């Protein structure tokens, strides 16, 4: 069935076979090789749409190969491989199957040439990923998983509604750039917005990611949001609204990231902020900005993944990711610390790391277009990223106060995965040309100008200084065991209490009404029984006289009628 071929199929087929591969080394190897097979399918293909066919009058294209889909496909595949390596120790078939399905769906979505295929894989990512949360097997993760699932599937159904409207409006379902304006496109944007964690649509991330298993969170951090960024780049490049959304997105999670105690949640907030950069890039929409967004997505897959891996390794060895319980881990987990610092440097956009070469594309794009305030806001967001993730996170985990934890260094699989990811971050930073060559638009850009390198170093150094100073004085908000309320409060607390209230009200009204109706019915039945029951006047055996009376009565009645 060559016409049904897409890289996703390799993953899905592989996922179905996972239970039959013996656990341990063989299965680990198997999981590592699947992404390789996936890449082989599309690598080297000339751009174009493959495997197109007609389904019920709709033009389905399972595989569209162009630079944009290829770079995301490649990044996803690589990340899937690294994640598999990271999860080498894992013996949970459910998570392994879910991982493959999840990665496959994400890659399938990236290569989808039409909206239906996109929808199919879009939902695929939602369903497959929730198992990574549920696999934690606790009450809390069950509830978080349910919330995550409802929102993710919600995104999917909004997408399909948008597609329906779009199909109705345009008569086609091919997935190309759209103009925001009709209900169809607004709906599609909303669907993407949920997965992309636009402000106020973002809560699922902070709710679900820290609720997953050790390896699950790493995998979750890779695909869903970047898929959404891809969809924005494909569907809504140059949509001005996205610039403002992106700016808001980049800025507001910073405060939460500074307050959070759970390091995995800190990372989700910082991920959310980084996504803001990409959304701005999509919104600016110039070839450079698109390149920037794509590059930043790729770079952030790896450095954010690296950070999640490091925190995951800590959790794996200590049983907690709470900042309040950690600290001083550099003693026993120095390698993890080093890799974490590489990730931190990347997100801080330190020169010669991947963050530097990707973020500067977006900032430059804003700069070329003279979008001063956007530029300024992004700069502020960068500063925030340096502060909360570049400095605070490693500080709380590895330095800070000694929590007297002396865990063992992370296991080999994790270390190797982190090492490779860290190497990638640095390689991209040192040799940006390789990344740039893969970007969708052909734009010349040189990140390592003298000015640019120096100012970025200035920024990082001064912020670090400020941080060191503030830490010495205890000026930063303290990490405490706490819950920081976010917008999810509205549906986790407000909405349920409204529903409870309504339910109580409706229940009372219903009770009252049904009691009323029931008593009326009872009365009716009683009255009927009184009249028609065995002893009732209608059923009773009347004496002959009474019968005759009845005859006389009827006769009288009809006779009256006679003389009318």
């Amino acid at each position, binding site marked *: 069935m060559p016409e049904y071929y897409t890289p996703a199929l390799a993953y899905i087929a592989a996922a179905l076979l996972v239970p039959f591969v013996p656990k341990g080394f063989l299965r680990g190897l198997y999981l590592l090789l699947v992404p390789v097979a996936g890449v082989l399918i599309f690598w080297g293909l000339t751009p174009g749409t493959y495997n197109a066919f007609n389904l019920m009058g709709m033009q389905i294209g399972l595989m569209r190969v162009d630079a944009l889909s290829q770079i995301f496909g490649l990044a996803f595949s690589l990340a899937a491989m690294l994640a598999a390596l990271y999860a080498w120790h894992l013996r949970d078939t459910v998570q392994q199957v879910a991982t493959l399905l999840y990665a496959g769906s994400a890659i399938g979505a990236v290569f989808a040439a039409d909206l239906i295929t996109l929808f199919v894989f879009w939902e695929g990512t939602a369903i497959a990923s929730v198992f990574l949360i549920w696999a934690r097997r606790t009450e809390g993760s069950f509830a*978080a998983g349910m919330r995550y699932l409802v929102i993710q599937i919600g995104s999917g159904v909004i997408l399909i509604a948008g597609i329906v409207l779009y199909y109705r409006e345009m008569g086609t379902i091919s997935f190309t750039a759209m103009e925001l304006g009709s209900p169809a496109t607004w709906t599609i944007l909303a669907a993407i917005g949920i997965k992309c964690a636009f402000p106020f649509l973002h809560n699922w991330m902070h709710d679900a990611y820290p609720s997953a298993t*050790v390896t699950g969170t790493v995998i979750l951090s890779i695909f869903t949001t970047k898929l959404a960024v891809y969809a924005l780049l494909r569907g809504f490049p140059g949509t001005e609204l996205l610039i403002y959304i992106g700016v808001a997105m980049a800025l507001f999670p910073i405060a939460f990231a500074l307050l959070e105690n759970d390091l995995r949640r800190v990372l989700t907030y910082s991920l959310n902020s980084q996504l803001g950069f990409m959304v701005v890039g999509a919104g600016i929409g110039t070839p450079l900005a698109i390149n920037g967004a794509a590059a930043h997505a790729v770079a952030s897959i790896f450095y954010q993944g690296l950070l999640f891996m490091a925190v995951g390794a800590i959790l794996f060895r200590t049983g907690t990711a709470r900042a309040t319980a950690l*600290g001083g881990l550099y003693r026993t987990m120095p390698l993890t610390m080093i890799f974490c610092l590489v990730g931190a440097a990347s997100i801080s956009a330190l020169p010669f790391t991947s963050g530097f070469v990707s973020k500067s594309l977006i900032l430059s794009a804003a700069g070329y277009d003279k979008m001063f305030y956007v530029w300024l806001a992004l700069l502020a967001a960068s500063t925030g990223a340096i502060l909360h993730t570049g400095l605070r996170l490693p500080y709380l985990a590895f330095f800070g106060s000694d929590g007297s934890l002396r865990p063992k260094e992370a296991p080999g699989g994790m270390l190797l995965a982190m090492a490779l990811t860290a190497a990638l971050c640095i390689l991209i930073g040192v040799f940006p040309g390789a990344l740039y060559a893969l970007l969708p638009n052909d734009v010349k850009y040189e990140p390592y100008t003298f000015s640019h390198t*120096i100012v970025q170093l200035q*920024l990082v*150094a001064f912020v670090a200084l400020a941080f060191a*100073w503030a830490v010495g004085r205890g000026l930063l908000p303290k990490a405490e065991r706490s819950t920081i309320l976010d917008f999810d409060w509205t549906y986790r607390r407000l909405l349920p209490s409204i529903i409870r209230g309504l339910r109580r009200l409706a229940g009372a009204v219903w009770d009252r009404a049904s009691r009323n109706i029931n008593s009326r019915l009872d009365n009716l039945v009683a009255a009927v029984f009184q009249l028609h029951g065995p002893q009732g006047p209608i059923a009773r055996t009347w004496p002959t006289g009474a019968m005759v009376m009845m005859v006389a009565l009827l006769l009288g009645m009809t006779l009256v009628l006679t003389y009318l």
Partner: protein
Amino acid sequence: MTGSSDKTTTNDKALPGAMLLGIDTARGGRIVTWLLVLICILLAAVEFVWPLHGYFEIEDQPVFYGWFGILVCIALAIFARIIGAILKRREDYYGSLSVSAEEHPAFDLAQEKADA
């Protein structure tokens, strides 16, 4: 980074990260801070030797990135404190419907001590 130095036992010397021991003491912190001050001064000085250029006028301000970073840090710290004051709740605020208050299940972990 105070009060933890006494926890450093002889045993820690054998740990793989022993190279950095002392960095989390008050003295270590001071050293790091001064090192940073030195770096900052150097980087600021570069600017006066080789003039830099950016996209906007504001970048021409002396050591713009330096003071901008510090200002943003201050603003963020204040803002975060305000947010924290308003939105911080008990860890078990959402009860059993959240993972916040529960421990990570042991089967998913391999908690091993370094000295074990």
